[in-house]
């Protein structure tokens, strides 16, 4: 792919540049450092954090259990959203704040499809894959709606998506006639829990699959180059034959796909939906993941793997805080503190300073020898 992922090898190195300085300049430095810090903290505070054991779940299947598995499992929706959010951010220089509400819509559509008109259904009324495809399609439509407002009507992304942010959950409720449908067929829950005989939570596979798909898309299409080019300089991109509006729209539609997959995982975990609460505030975490990944929220160059790592960092942090019984009302405050630290650390100004600080003693040492 043509993003900056490969830059480490090609970046010019000055001979007197310390390893530390080179490291701090990498885009992935912050998420990797944050993850390392969290891992170290947990290793020192309680190494049992990393224990993974095999248990038997209530259906008699052997399943892996442990904090690490929980982090990987629970981060799934966020990781998938972060991928789409990165593209939207890169192309339009703004964020979609309606992803939580659109997840509710996608989840509602999928449940409506499999439950038919029943409130509590014990069997699938439609092949699951078809229901999911319909959910993805509907979610893409809503993505296209947001994208149209942003690209063609030139409305700021946050304002444009505010519409769906406000209306989305009502639409989700309306899709199911305001009832809370429950799907009891066990196969519906495979995607959110475990497949029979496989000890790893299914969301981890779905996430891996999505990452793989985007890796392939970025490798075998020009999506990366085009979105970055449009995000950095739309005028110039247009004069090079690109259609900036179409590309912006495209990224919002792609985000729609991500939202639907995340929504499917979420409803599949429990087989039901609560329109007001499902994926509440997840848009903020998704935006945060993009920022933590070292991507500029003003658009342009992006590193999708940074965002993915950022999403895992957020979930790792959440799980760690739960483990140490931090009251969950206080959780957002702790997150905010950590976030401020990370974001400040990732600011170019601070990184330069850091690199400078490390360089001075290194030089002094050289002088002595």
């Amino acid at each position: 792919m043509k993003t900056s992922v490969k830059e480490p090898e090609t970046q010019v190195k000055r001979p007197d540049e310390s390893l530390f300085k080179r490291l701090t300049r990498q885009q992935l430095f912050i998420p990797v450092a944050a993850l390392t810090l969290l891992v170290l903290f947990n290793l020192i505070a309680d190494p049992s954090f990393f224990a993974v054991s095999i248990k038997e779940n209530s259906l008699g299947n052997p399943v892996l259990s442990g904090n690490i598995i929980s982090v990987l499992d629970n981060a799934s929706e966020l990781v998938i959203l972060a991928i789409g959010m990165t593209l939207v951010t890169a192309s339009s220089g703004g964020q979609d704040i309606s992803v939580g509400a659109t997840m509710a819509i996608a989840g509602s559509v999928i449940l409506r499809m499999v439950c038919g008109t029943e409130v509590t259904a014990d069997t699938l009324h439609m092949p699951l894959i078809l229901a999911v495809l319909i959910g993805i399609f509907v979610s893409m439509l809503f993505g296209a709606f947001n994208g149209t407002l942003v690209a063609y009507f030139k409305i700021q992304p946050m304002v444009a998506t505010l519409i769906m942010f406000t209306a989305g959950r009502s639409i989700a409720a309306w899709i199911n006639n305001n009832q809370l449908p429950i799907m009891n067929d066990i196969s519906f829950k495979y995607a959110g829990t475990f497949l029979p005989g496989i000890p790893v939570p299914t969301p981890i596979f779905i996430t891996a699959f999505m990452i793989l798909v985007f890796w392939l898309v970025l490798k075998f299409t020009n999506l990366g180059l085009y979105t970055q080019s449009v995000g950095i300089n739309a005028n110039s991109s247009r004069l090079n034959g690109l259609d900036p509006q179409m590309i912006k729209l495209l990224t919002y539609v792609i985000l729609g796909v991500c939202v639907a997959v995340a929504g499917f995982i979420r409803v599949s975990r429990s087989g039901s939906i609560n329109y007001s609460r499902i994926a509440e505030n997840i848009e903020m975490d998704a935006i945060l993941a993009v920022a933590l990944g070292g991507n500029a929220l003003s658009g342009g160059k992006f590193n999708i793997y940074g965002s993915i790592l950022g999403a895992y960092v957020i979930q790792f942090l959440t799980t760690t805080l739960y483990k140490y019984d931090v009251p969950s009302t206080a959780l957002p405050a702790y997150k905010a503190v950590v976030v401020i630290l990370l974001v400040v650390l990732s600011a170019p100004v601070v990184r330069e300073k850091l690199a400078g600080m490390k360089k001075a003693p290194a030089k002094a040492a050289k002088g002595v020898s």
Partner: protein
Amino acid sequence: MQEGAVLEMRGICKYFPGVRALQDVDFTLREGEIHALMGENGAGKSTLIKVLTGVYPKDGGEVYIKGVSGAALIRSPQDAQNAGISTVYQEITLCPNLSVAENMYIGRTKGAMTNWKQMNQGAGKILKSLGIPAGPTQQLGTCSIAVQQMVAIARAVDMECKVLILDEPTSSLDDQEVQKLFGLMRDLRAKGVGIIFVTHFLEQVYEVCDRITVLRDGTLVGEYVIEDLPRVELVSKMLGKELDDMADIKGEAGGTAVSLEGAPVLEAAGLCSSAGIKPFDFSIRKGEVNGFTGLLGSGRSECVRAIFGADHVTGGTVKMDGKDVKIRKPLDAMKQGIGYLPEDRKGDGIVGDLSVRENIILAFQVMKGFFHPFSRAQAEAFADEYIKLLEIKTASADTPIKSLSGGNQQKCILARWILTDPKYLILDEPTRGIDIGTKIEIQKLVLRLAAEGKSVTFISSEIDEMLRTCSRLIVMRDRKAVGELCGEDLTQTKIMATIAGGDEE
């Protein structure tokens, strides 16, 4: 400090990753002089200015300023301003969404309260005294580029400075405006202000400057009193080599003998666009170099933008190789084998954060299609080929293009279009803000492309440059094509006369 000096820089060093931008450079500015800072693109002029004004921290050396004991500490543009150093940058750095007066006073009002009336009156007075055609309450973005530039100068002038830095202030001004600026500079000189003047226009240097400091490849070549340095010598010092007669490059590249017969590659009739130009006819033959000329704002850029489909085309027909084609958007034009280097390099040309490599392959990549990206190896091969061919100075192909000097950025854009192997290439102001060496290289390149059978439309504000390259000129006035000159008519006086329109009536 030396007697009479207002500013002294000693042993200035500055490094960027992979580049030594400045190496042990000295510079002295005396009271009441206009001092030209000359050098090719990438010689270190802009870097030196940015170090002086605190935009970049320096890696070595000292700066002394009159009235400040010891080495001056300049760590931010604010520090520089407080020390009496004002700057007008090449790229306009004002806020287009604020009013003219606000732009002039931004960051200098004391306290939180602003006396709007006083501010607008003060601004109005200065604008009037400088003859700048803008009202203080007008939104800056609605002014022309030239006026914006003059507002930037007005802002700097008003700041009671000891040192005024003008970094390429004239590149978007027309002759009259330049004269106005020079008058202003002379006034300031008389008041004892030291002026650092960075420009590529040799004539302008010899018109107003007292002294010249020449930089090359980040090192100091020397400081000269203007009378002691004839033009040819200055150019050779800048380039670091003896210069052949510049006027002869047309001959070098194989002569102007382009056949004016043969079928046109592109033929446009009654073309007009949303940019407000009057319908015009245009044609170009295989291997021909022609050009649009005219004053700033005469519509020459709008014409070529209409041909390329960059503006919304509202009427007219276009034929490529005799066949009717519809060009509604740039991609249509690209598919017909047309390339376009836009006038506004920063706004329309480069994609700043992307690497040199990505910038070079961009247009070709777009033509190849969404689902057919070049492999990394292919892209690298293309980029390396053109970096070598056009001698683009960059640390590597992965360097973001925005960190290159203007001339090298322009070469990347040229590379981008040559890579697409166009039949017809439109170059709108390819040499603006570029050093003389690169200018000549670009002119040679244009003629070489023509010799290879490509057609080129060349636009430049410098008429002698057009004369050297073009075999036919379309003259624009007030958004209308008013004449076409070729052969013996192609002389400076004839062009001037046509532009001025005096002999028509």
